[in-house]
């Protein structure tokens, strides 16, 4: 299953619902383009909802890091929401769980920006 994204606004925060695989190639490119487009439009409070992301490889992990740092460098904030066990485990073993602000419910994720 290829990567799909859909963005929506909740109280000034952009929630990006992601589904499929964030892997080398199309998946990583879609994520990169989505975040760049949001930042370009001035949307700097971003939540990546990864509830339906069932697979991430090292390139996908790199793309998440890139999205995080790109957003931060532009004065914004990017958080992760609803990690699956697989993605959670990957962020744990790569120690990135300590880098990302990870939330497990949308309301608290949105509220955390205020």
């Amino acid at each position, binding site marked *: 299953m290829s990567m799909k994204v859909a963005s929506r606004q909740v109280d000034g925060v952009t929630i990006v619902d992601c589904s499929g695989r964030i*892997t*080398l*190639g199309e998946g990583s490119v879609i994520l990169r383009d989505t975040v760049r487009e949001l930042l370009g439009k001035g949307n700097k409070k971003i939540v990546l909802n990864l509830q339906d992301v069932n697979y991430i*490889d*090292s*390139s996908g*992990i*790199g*793309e998440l*890091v*890139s999205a*995080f*740092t790109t957003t931060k460098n532009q004065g914004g904030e990017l958080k992760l929401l609803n990690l699956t066990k*697989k993605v959670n485990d*990957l962020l744990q*073993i*790569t*120690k*990135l769980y*300590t*880098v990302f602000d990870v939330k497990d419910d949308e309301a608290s994720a949105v509220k955390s920006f205020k």
Partner: protein
Amino acid sequence: MAMTEQRVSYTLDSSLETIDNAEEKATRIATELGFPDDEIMQISMAVREGAVNAVLHGNAYAPDKKVILAFERTGGDLIITIRDQGVGMDLSKIPNPLAPENLLKTSGRGIFLMRSFMDVVEIRPTQTGTELKLIKHVHGPTAGGKEASQ
């Protein structure tokens, strides 16, 4: 080809499709051998990372260079080898991705993930490129499949 034989080998192009293809083959073979779901995921992901290294960093997508992927069942081990025809890599130059100063790097986690998921990871130069060997021990009583003579 089913993994009821002791060894299967594939010659693949240096393309993105090869990476998905290698991962699918690993998933299928690990499933046939009876590995539990979490280990199937680990094996398929390690093979994917190995294939990424071979296609991108080894062969650099060169159309005249191939990736050789082989799966072998010997005793209690699943042995996977991935060979490329690239210029090779200097392992000493690959930084520790868990070091605080490297955590925000966007690459350099592939070998680390392979080592996290497999029991043995060996990387060695060959006369024509680099050979990666990944070994996963078969733990469960059902794992193993049926071996046949070649």
